[in-house]
């Protein structure tokens, strides 16, 4: 069981991912925006962050860059998976530079596959 922080401005998508993670026995924390994610990440210390890129307050890249530069090393190294609406190569490159581990294009992945990979994060912990 791991603790996953879901950062997305769409409540529907948060609920979807939370339900999926719960069904596989994981814990989830739903966060509706980039600023809130930054405010809560140190206290919550999630094992994995699912991070939307396009958010109105602060986009996923900015959130990830700030997490990576946090003084608490454990938090700074949190595994992050980007969740995005398009598989734009430039966007994938930016995600790589910030050491995001996965890059999911919305509507283009299988929920079982996602859960299996979450299971691997759990096993490697």
């Amino acid at each position, binding site marked *: 069981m791991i603790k996953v922080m879901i950062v997305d401005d*769409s409540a*529907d*998508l948060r*609920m*979807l*991912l939370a*339900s*999926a993670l719960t*069904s*596989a026995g994981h814990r989830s924390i739903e966060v509706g925006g980039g600023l809130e994610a930054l405010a809560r990440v140190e206290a919550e210390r999630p094992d994995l962050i699912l991070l939307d890129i*396009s958010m*109105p307050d602060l*986009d996923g890249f900015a959130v990830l860059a700030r997490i990576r530069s946090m003084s608490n090393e454990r938090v700074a190294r949190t595994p992050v998976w980007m969740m995005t*609406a*398009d598989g*734009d190569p430039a966007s994938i490159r930016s995600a790589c530079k910030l050491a995001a581990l996965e890059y999911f*294009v*919305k*509507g*283009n992945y*299988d*929920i*079982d596959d996602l859960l299996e990979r979450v299971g691997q994060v759990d096993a490697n912990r």
Partner: protein
Amino acid sequence: MDAAAQTSYLSACTPGHALPFVSPAPTVLPLRESEMAARLRGLEWSSTPLGPLSGWPTSLRVAVGLCLNSRSPMSVLWGADLVFVYNDACIPLLGQRHPAAFGRPLRDAWAGLADSVGLQLDAVLLRGEATRAHPVPLVPEPQANVEAARLTWSMSGVPDDTGGIGGVFCAWEANAEASANGLGDAVGSLEHVARVEAERLSRMKDEFLGVLSHQLRTPLNAILGWSQLIGRGRVSGDVVAKGLAVIERSATAQAQLIDETLDLVRVAAGKVQLDVEEVSLPAIINAVFDIVRPAADAKGIVLSGKDHPGRFQLVGDAHRIQQMVCHLVTNAVRFTTPGGSVGVGLAHVEGMIELAVADTGRGIAPEFRPHVFEAFRQKEGGTSREHGGFGLGLAFVKQVAEAHHGTVSVQSAGPGTGSTFTVRLPGLGQEIATPGIATPGIATPGIATPGIATPGIATPGLGKPLSTADVQGPLPKLTGLQVLVVDDEPEARDLLSRILGERGVVVTVAACAAEALGLLRRHRFALLISDIRMPEQDGFDLIREVRSLASLAGRTVPAVALTALAGPEDKARALAAGYQAHLAKPVDVAALYATVAQLAGAKGVFRS
């Protein structure tokens, strides 16, 4: 002509033999008269790294001679300092760098260029490659006769007399892309502008598709994800019900988004079908505020202008007009920072209804203002995703306004000062507002933006809404007048009926001259209003027959020709045929009322 005279330079060149026609001891190649040739002769070369002309190696003389004799822009860079020699065709591209750059090391002559072509020069000088660079932006000097342009340099090394690379020969591709004075350059400039424009529109479309795909994928993700969760039995009970609700909501949202997108694209392409009815703008504004308020509340933006007590009716497509107002208000909210305000005002101005949407937002830079109503345009710099816009909204607004014979414009004092979008639409039965007295106390004539106090935005001192009594003298009394309207087009009959009905006129309609004549034989009318161009009998035929009717009342009914044929000859012809007045389509409501009042009154009114 003998054979020797026809021998060309190339045919005289035989492999293994020396070139013919080379003068044995060239100073420089014989030079065509040109400004740069004169400067070459006049410059004190001994004070430059190249030393006096007489000591130049042959290869440099040849290269400089080829360069100066060409009418295409070319230059030579020579020696370790890359001393810059260029021909007349380069002058317009150099702007104020000319003439100081001539004979100077490139780093002094054109510092920025030396940096941007450095790698290319290395390839030529160190590895002897011939290169063609990627286009380099040509940054114009102040007051240069050159607009922003791009230069491509083809470079090849020139061997010096010892067999090494002595310098670089550069051909400039500065054709249509660079512009300077002169006709050819003007054409080039236009082409350049057109190309830049096309590239920009293409980027905007990419951006649009990016935003669209984002908007479509988010619900798609929910639909697919929940289907998988539910279908594979991962969730149960309550959660299934929740998931199904999300699927339904997402699919509905997606369908609506597709509809709206198609709508926008269709409207932006100029294909608008109007479903015409009588429309009340205050009601529309209220409906729009209901839609936009949650977004405004979320940002702490004050919306003002609800429940406008004035009467602002027009004939139009209520759905489109609401979409139009909604776009303007949504846009205003979107580009206004939290805590700002957005106001919608209405006013009667010069016979039109004016709707103004003013915000305290970021404003619009002057250079962007001419483009705000174009499709796929948005403020550049990647803010469109941030603001979630499509770039089609304002194009839609313009199309809808114009389809209603209206206009739209934008006022902004520049970035940071807010913007006001103003739509003018022909009103229905709105009373003829006399120009200049419409909205006392308003700094910007005719723009009513109640409730917003913002620098740069006119803040009207509207103590009360405009009403008929405020803006005009007594109205002509039309109530109860019996008027016969003849037009073969049902929409035109309906429109006229509505406009006249607004003022209490009792309208009878006829679809053709024969029907009108029948009605005129049986009933008395205070006025006849007829279209001219109709199939079978036209308006001229009709009025001839009317004027020869048996009954006095029929024969003498005042008649107005209402027609798209609006030239002076058309008017003269209508009057000669027996009409008392001639009005052009589309109908000017104020003029129509005035004409009806005048003619019906003059004849002695038949009231019902």
